[in-house]
């Protein structure tokens, strides 16, 4: 009485769902971190530009 198909399918689906979940969490985290870094960089740029302008005159 071997039900290999059902067993492997259920492990396979469980694995796929879990992997998708992990991948989604990790990728979401990376995207957020990238956005934060970009914002950080742009605010730094703005701040330094503002500083340069105040120094000029």
């Amino acid at each position, binding site marked *: 009485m071997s039900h290999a198909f059902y*067993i492997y399918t259920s492990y396979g689906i469980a694995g796929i769902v879990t992997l998708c*979940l992990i991948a989604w969490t990790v990728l979401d985290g990376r995207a957020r971190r990238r*956005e934060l870094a970009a*914002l950080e960089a742009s605010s730094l740029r703005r701040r330094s530009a503002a500083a340069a302008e105040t120094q000029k005159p």
Partner: protein
Amino acid sequence: MTESLAITKFSDLANPTRFLALAARILPWLAAVTAALFAVGLYLAFTTQGDYQQGDTVRIMYVHVPAAWLSMMCYSVMALSAIGTLVWRHPLADVSHKAAAPLGAAFTLIALVTGSLWGRPMWGTWWVWDARLTSVFVLFLMYLGIIALNRAMDDPSRAARLSAVLILVGFVNIPIIKFSVNWWNTLHQPASVIRLGGPTIDGEFLRPLLVMALAFTLLFFTLHIMAIRNEIWRRRVATQRRMAARLAGRES
């Protein structure tokens, strides 16, 4: 465990920045332990003997039961966080139940699919409106409803409070749903269906089951902490963007 303790007891951890620091320290260890447990659990799951009655399909239980357990535990975690949101107005609690909802939905989905795959050779159809399966399906719909509610609102703190109310009402409702589904089911058909699991599990099956359950639980917490972190970052991005808009207005 870490969050629920953190939420209720240590107000130090109220600070999201502290949470981020703590998460960064814990996460690698948690992930490593989870991976190790999964390795052991999967090894045990495929090497133990099959049941003489259910045959090899009992191996499906090693995934199904932990997923079903998680689907309920996750809802409890969300209910705790919802209390945190409504009673203590804890910022991390807001984030916690929002982050947990997709995880709960995913594990419930695994429980449903594996249950259906287990039932196919047992019952001869993919789906039976068995009391347990039906309750899990209703739980799945509730998870999706909470996710949809969270997505439908712009303002995160308002969304958190409203979905907290929904979560708590749902939590109170769960026993009633379970009872009525049971009643509905026995009303319509005699208990001819083989119950999932049951008390006749002996040690041979218990060991891989416990290891897998532990592995799944740790996986949930790892992902939960990561998702909370993502959510905190997402909110920071949003606030910084709004700030950038205001700053740009002032400069020009």
